[in-house]
């Protein structure tokens, strides 16, 4: 252990040399900007940065990418808090409380609680994972299709905690998300399903255009409803200030150590397990925070707990994904998949032997990750005035510009117009759902997990059709049990909240 920290300390000193610090800083800035812009994901930003890294030495290139990853993960929370549109999928849950906090007139608090939670979650995640890579990896290595299926079902069971006022509508939203994933070619044999012979539906609905469409339109159209109807969010009045007491914000986070540690732990766990990623980690951590809270009914109204849970897990997730790729050569998500490609281009093969064969690069990545965290905070602090301009711009200017970026984001994924049509379709769907009162978050979770649930279910059945194996495999059985408990707990909380509501109503009548 001592040797490990000696290596790490030496690597941190190494990464502070200008040769590595400059690409790391530029990557962090690019990440914060890319992450903050709605419709531009971290994946897209890291793909854009990739060509610039080819001319650099491997550690310089990987440092730049690590900067993008860390900066992007925190950057997504800025727009999530300020304009209610998550800059990246991993900031979805930040909108639930960040944006209401901004609407209550505390944009600075919303942004900085998110930034410091990301910093602390990321730092804790990084330190913990450097020490515990081996044991965590050995757990993940034991997972077969039964365990993965149950893990994804467990993640999906979290929708029960995100349902708002109606449990049925929340679960229905999750089911709609699952149904969207079955449209198109089946993942095992490639047989077209529910396509009605349409070429457009043949490839299914890509995740990102659906996500951008649903969130961007639900938010923007709700704002447009209020334009020229008495409330013109935007230029009127002096722009709100992002200035807050940093010590006060830090204390707000540190005074909730259990929330911070538990959310960080969820982020790490989800990061270590392949294919789930930050988009699920932040929602799961938010759900857990709500379940353990003594005031769950306050979630979604602009309380710091929601932002702390989402952002700390989101950045701890980055650390988990990095360890998975370094120890096993398995990309934890799309961002680390791009990093894997970059490593291969530089002749480095990540896997079990990576740390022993390339210790300088392995520890260099850890060091770059840890140094990127304060750089991320400095970048956001230095750009605070620019972030303020985002919400000070009149809606009549902001809306067209954001929609153009959404179109570019959707189009650039595959360079085809079909993805832009998907964006438009799900824009209408998202707005309709808001008007009907169906929550959006469960749909997104269903959409993220649907494919993986199906693939692992079919793999498990193909291995052995005995359905009891899902329960008799200890990890799988435990996860399924946790799923049932999660739904029961949500039901109980839902009824308790309703009862409290009824009591409050009676009190209102009495008094």
């Amino acid at each position: 252990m001592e040797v490990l920290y000696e290596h790490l300390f030496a690597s941190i000193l190494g990464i502070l040399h200008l040769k590595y610090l400059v690409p790391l800083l530029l990557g962090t800035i690019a990440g914060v900007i890319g992450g903050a812009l709605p419709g531009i994901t971290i994946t897209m930003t890291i793909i854009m940065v990739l060509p610039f890294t080819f001319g650099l030495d491997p550690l310089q290139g990987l440092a730049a990418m690590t900067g993008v990853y860390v900066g992007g993960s925190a950057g997504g929370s800025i727009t999530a808090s300020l304009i209610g549109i998550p800059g990246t999928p991993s900031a979805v849950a930040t909108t639930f409380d960040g944006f209401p906090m901004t609407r209550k007139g505390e944009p600075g608090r919303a942004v900085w609680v998110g930034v410091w939670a990301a910093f602390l979650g990321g730092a804790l995640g990084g330190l913990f994972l450097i020490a515990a890579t081996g044991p965590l990896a050995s757990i993940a290595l034991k997972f077969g299709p039964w365990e993965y299926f149950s893990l994804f079902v467990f993640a999906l069971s979290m929708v029960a905690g995100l349902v708002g006022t109606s449990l049925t509508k929340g679960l229905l939203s999750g089911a709609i998300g699952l149904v969207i994933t079955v449209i198109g070619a089946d993942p095992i044999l490639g047989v077209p399903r529910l396509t009605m012979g349409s070429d457009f539906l043949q490839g299914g609905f890509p995740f990102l255009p659906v996500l951008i469409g649903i969130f961007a339109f639900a938010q923007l159209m709700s704002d447009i409803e209020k334009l020229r109807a008495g409330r013109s969010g935007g230029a009127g009045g002096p722009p709100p200030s992002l200035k807050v007491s940093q010590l006060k914000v830090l204390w707000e986070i540190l005074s909730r150590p259990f929330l911070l540690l538990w959310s960080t732990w969820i982020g790490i766990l989800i990061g270590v397990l392949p294919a789930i990623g930050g988009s699920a980690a932040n929602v799961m951590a938010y759900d857990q925070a709500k379940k353990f809270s003594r005031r769950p009914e306050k979630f979604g109204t602009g309380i710091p707990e929601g932002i702390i849970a989402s952002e700390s897990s989101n950045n701890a997730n980055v650390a988990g994904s990095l360890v998975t790729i370094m120890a096993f050569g398995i990309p934890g998500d799309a961002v680390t998949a791009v990093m894997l490609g970059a490593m291969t281009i530089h002749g480095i093969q990540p896997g079990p032997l990576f740390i022993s064969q390339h210790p300088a690069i392995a520890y260099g990545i850890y060091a770059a990750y840890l140094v990127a965290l304060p750089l991320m905070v400095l970048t956001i602090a230095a750009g605070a005035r620019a972030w303020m301009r985002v919400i000070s711009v009149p809606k009549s200017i902001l809306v067209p510009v954001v929609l153009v970026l959404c179109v570019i984001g959707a189009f650039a994924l595959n360079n085809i117009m079909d993805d832009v049509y998907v964006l438009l379709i799900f824009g209408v769907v998202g707005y309709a759902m808001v008007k009907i009162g169906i929550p959006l978050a469960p749909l997104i979770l269903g959409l993220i997990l649907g494919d993986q649930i199906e693939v692992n279910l079919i793999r498990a059945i193909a291995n052995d059709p005995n359905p009891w194996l899902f329960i008799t495999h200890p990890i799988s059985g435990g996860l399924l049990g946790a799923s049932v408990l999660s739904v029961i707990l949500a039901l109980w909380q839902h009824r308790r909240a309703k009862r409290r509501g009824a009591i409050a109503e009676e009190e209102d009548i009495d008094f």
Partner: protein
Amino acid sequence: MLGRDGIAGLVCLALSLFGLALTRGLPAPSMLPVGPGFYPRIVLTLMAGLSAILVVSDVIAGRRGTRAVVARPAVQPNYRLVAATFAIFAAYVALLPPLGFRIATFLFVAVLQVVLEPPRGSRRWALVLAVALATTWLTYLAFERYLSVLLPRGTWTGM
């Protein structure tokens, strides 16, 4: 009489039953114990069941008079503006392939600004055109020139 939730449930029920009907045409399993229709049937049945519960709950709530009343917003929402924005965005998406990114984006940003906040005075008109031009030019420059993202070319305009 169905309420808002009942109608939403009915639409979802109809869609899920339609989806279930479509899965009947899927091929039977050959190499694997389950075929391509196995999982879609599970999730569509789940969706149909939840939709039916939503409809039934709404009917019961309607009969008991306990249906949740949707609070009237303090300011009447401007749905005409929402419909106009959707229509302009749809036109933008439709015109991207024939006009190309630059012309379509310039027109979209300019027209939507005018619709959302009609300009009064020449300064505001100048701002509308400047924003449309800057958005188009900066996004084109950043993505097409520096970030190698190929933006749509116009089949009519060639640009």
